[in-house]
């Protein structure tokens, strides 16, 4: 399967992690778009063809919960995988109300993130049919 047609949006205020994600996803053949904050992510989602989102939960200004809430106002379908550095139960409970495809903890292996990504895409495809 050619992953290059799949465009993954990575939203994280942390430059290093964003780049690592980009490096890793590209190594798996995906196309990657990066956003450093929620506002940029929303603009990108409105204007570009994106297939799946990795969204950091903890960001200054507009956090993951707020960003996802805004995304869901105009895009109910796109699969969103939440990224978090640690288990923040409060925010996780909040964010789960906006339909997420999983949580990828930053400390976990990339493989786990990949599994989440693949299952999210599969689920999305099935729903579309």
């Amino acid at each position: 399967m050619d992953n290059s047609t799949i465009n993954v949006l990575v939203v994280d205020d942390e430059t290093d992690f964003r780049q690592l994600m980009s490096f890793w996803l590209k190594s798996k053949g995906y196309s990657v778009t990066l956003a450093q904050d929620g506002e940029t992510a929303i603009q990108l989602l409105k204007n570009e063809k994106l297939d799946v989102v990795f969204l950091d939960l903890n960001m200054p200004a507009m956090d993951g919960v707020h960003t996802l809430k805004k995304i869901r106002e105009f895009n109910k379908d796109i699969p969103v995988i939440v990224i978090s550095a640690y288990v923040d139960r409060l925010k996780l409970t909040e964010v789960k109300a906006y339909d997420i495809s999983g949580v990828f903890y930053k400390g976990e292996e990339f493989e786990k993130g990949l599994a989440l990504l693949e299952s999210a895409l599969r689920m999305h495809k099935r729903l579309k049919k």
Partner: protein
Amino acid sequence: MSSLTIYIITAIVSIITALLLVQLTRLSAQAKIKADEKAIRDAYLTSHGIDEDLNQTIYKEISELTDSEEFCRGISNKVSGILSREIDKRVTQTALELRKKYESIIEEKSQDKEIAWKKYNKVLAEKKETEAVIHSIAEGLVVVDAAGNVVMMNEAAEKLLGVSKIDKIGRPMLEGIKEEQLVSLAKNSPGEDTKEIELVSQENETKKILRASSAVIEDEDGQTVGMVSVLSDITKQRELDRMKSSFVASVSHELRTPLIGIQKSLSLILSKTAGDVSENQEQLLSIADRNLQRLTLLINDLLDLSKLEAGRMEIKREPYSVEKVIAESIEGLATWVKSKSLNLEKEIESGLPEVNIDPNRITQVLTNLIGNAVKFTPQNGTITVKASSGRGDGHVQVTVQDTGIGIEKENLPKIFGKFYQVGERTPTDISGTGIGLSIAKEIVELHGGKIWVESEKGFGTRFIFTLPLR
């Protein structure tokens, strides 16, 4: 001269002689008698008419003996006079004796009074001294009686509780204090001798945290007669504790971010995503990766500890299989176990029901216990993880047993304490933060279970914990 006359004359002479002697003693006695006594005596004699009656009686008696009325009258006068004086003397003497007795009693009493007064002054001085001590101590001191009424309260206590002593003495401790937490102070149960009370100051609405250490006062028969409480303001201490915990938490979070960056970069290089890696490079990068993992575990421990101290450690329960949680924990440690050539065996009772647990947290407990077993078991040793329905008391019992170096008996009670490390020096590859077990204990207890250890130096260690089925 008739024999009767002689007899009478002899009698009179002897009476006169006696009278003279009596007169002599009377004179000396009279000198001592005071005017008031004399007055009493006179009044007594007159009021009772002794002189008259006596004279009549004697006259009557003598008149039977002689016909001469004049003679009879003379004798009876003389005799009654003598008798009167004799009575007079007796009365005086008795009065004197009584007075002496009375004086000695008075003296005795006044001596007693003086002693009592001295004692009273001494007690008063001691009381003042005690009061001065009590009032000058910085800690608040409140003494209540068995009914909970305030008996004594020092200035520090007044200040801490925001009440006035005058309003409180003899009244129930809680009267006029709204804070319901104070109820706990008055109703301190005997088992708990220290408790913390939160109060809101009436003046500036700031919160105050007091620590009350109380002791029950008992009389000789062991009856509770009251309670003494020492109050200290620990608001600042608490604030510092909170700041420390939040500092540790934020630093740990901050530390995680760069660690994740390093870990992810290493893993990408090691997975050869970024191109080929030579054998030497791979070896060195693996060392870097291993040490990074240790650092991460350490930081996670610190973060847990700060949560624990701040009382923010939470568990999120869900029905979960014990077998599964054991398998997952073992899986995470498989590489380490293999690298030390250890046998890891599982003995899981079949048909164990699911338990209501936080799988992440129980995995953490098991990882810690199995990890310790790996650390302290020499090569080719065996680690056994068992799970059973226990003794049918509604608990699942999980055991992690090793054939390692064991723990000395005297160290067993300390093992769940914070920062405790077995032995003084451990090789660096088996050192840790020393908080893993205290965290494990906290997690098990949050689940309503118990954890304990059985060990003998040289014969391995067995950690056992229970989880309630419901």
